[in-house]
């Protein structure tokens, strides 16, 4: 595995910092995405769960921009990344509003207490 990672060629010439291979960045994004999934599945504190989702969104953005750089700084990738940031802000706002409403009623942030609906 290590050998295959090191064997990856650097990115194409004519783009910013070509000595950093795009696959390294994609790999880092994958790691971030999986950290997010892990947090979503393991943590019970609602705020931390929201933060995990933010990590996943950032992984998507990093992928978009790494892929855009590989294509000579394709503007489309940056446009998409801006939409993702917008969506992240929207979700943070609505999520925290729901969290506050929930907290007013229950005085806890533990997801496991959400069992009133028969499962």
């Amino acid at each position, binding site marked *: 595995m290590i050998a295959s990672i090191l064997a990856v060629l650097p990115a194409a010439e004519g783009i910013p910092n070509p000595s950093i291979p795009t696959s390294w960045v*994609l790999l880092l*994004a994958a790691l971030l*995405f999986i950290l*997010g999934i892990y947090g*979503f599945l393991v943590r019970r504190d*609602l705020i931390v*769960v*929201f933060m995990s*989702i933010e990590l*996943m*969104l950032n*992984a*998507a*953005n990093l*992928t*978009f921009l*790494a*892929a*855009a750089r*590989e*294509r000579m700084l*394709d503007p*489309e*990738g940056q*446009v*998409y990344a801006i*939409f*993702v940031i917008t*969506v992240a802000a*929207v*979700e943070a706002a*609505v*999520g925290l509003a*729901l*969290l506050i*409403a*929930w907290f007013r*009623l*229950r005085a806890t942030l533990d*997801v496991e207490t*959400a069992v*009133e*609906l*028969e*499962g």
Partner: protein
Amino acid sequence: MDFRLTTTDLHALLPLVILSAGACLVLLIDLFLREEARSRVLPPLTSLILLGALGAGIEQYISLSPGSFRFPSERLGPLLTPIWRHQVFTAVGAILLCGIALAVHWISTSWLREEDRPAYGEYQCLLLLFPIGTILLIGARNLMLAFVGLEIFSVALYVLTAMRRTRSRAVEAGLKYFLLGAFAAAIFLYGSALIYAGKGTLDLPDLGAISREGLPAPVGLAALGGGILFLALFFKASVAPFHMWTPDVYQGAPTPITALMSTGTKTAAFFLLITAARLFPHEILPLIPILAIVSILVGNAGALRQTDLKRLLAYSGVAHAGYLLVAYCAIALGQGHQDAHTAIRAILYYLAVYGITNLAAFGVLAWLERREESVLTFEGIRGLGRRNPFCAAVLALAALSLAGIPPTAGFWAKYQVFAAALSAGQTTAAVVGILGSVVGLYYYLRILVALYFEPAPEEARIPAAGFAGALTLGLSGAAILLFGIFPSLLVDPLIHIRL
């Protein structure tokens, strides 16, 4: 490069323009009204806006159908074409979604009046914004636009689910829906990012072209991205095993919102599944029939155990997603355009019928639901045939249609779906689907038995329904029968659908 929107562009986007302007108008007017005036002014205004959007959709449908003389489609030109499908497909979607929103609005007027502190402005604003998101999802030629649409209607639904914000059940349902929905959205985005990394574009036609022309079918990153994207879509369409949220959220949400969720979300998700069919990675195509079978089994098995009617309809919704996937197999796995177009028509027919039927069923439930958080169980509808014959008749028709018994529209819907699958060679899925429908008969007939053959409880009181609610129920009941007896009424308009 062109920065100006022309009138033809606006014509292509007319339903969206009407809805978004209407939503802002409702918010603004709401500011200046007194508490009593709100209930008199805002609901008719909302109806008017939705009718306008519906009319715009119908006008687009007429002008886009071949053979129309008024607006030949060439005259519309390639203005927004790189990003927007100005086609019959989108117009049909717009008509369906505006119709659904209108029906939900009518169902909810009397229900809303019974609330402690009816929030007319916000509720109706969000109700008007919901179809915008779904229409975008249907008409988008670009995955990012589709995603923004998905997010618009999802956020509107999270909020509407939790709109009774002093009741912990509703807030819990909203929170659950939000958590899983945001997770699915993040997965959708990461999938799109991988597709972009692999292919360098998110335009759906280009993506389709790349996988068609000699170049290898989606491999590596793009294939993985496609697979991940479909996970998110299956979640929205509540296909098993991604349906865990469905029963809880359906039960906790206010009944009219459940109606909106079960019809609108499913319709939009399947429209996008159809458009994005080519993104599905080829290696795991055989999974689609398996998912269809699992959904049918899980949905029917879950529904058998339920006593709560909303949960029952949630599980039946999972099963119906399975039936739809049976037809979807024909698009994904079938040979050639003929199979695909038959299957698309079958799916759209099914979605329309399922929408009407579910609106009827949830409409009756919303009518029966008291101001208190009553649990809608089989107990609650016992002997309804004598207490309120109209309600009972509509619910019975809806149950028959969901079960797929002639002469209701549900029969033809199921028939077309299974016929499309069989002609594309998907025998196993179709057979499981037919067997599943037979199992489904049990719990749908249980509804009929409770309605007509069981004595009514003593203190049963039926709240009065408004005129609009009764009209919606009457219309949807009539439509179930009409399209069941004359299925061509609904088949013929779909003939011009092209992918």
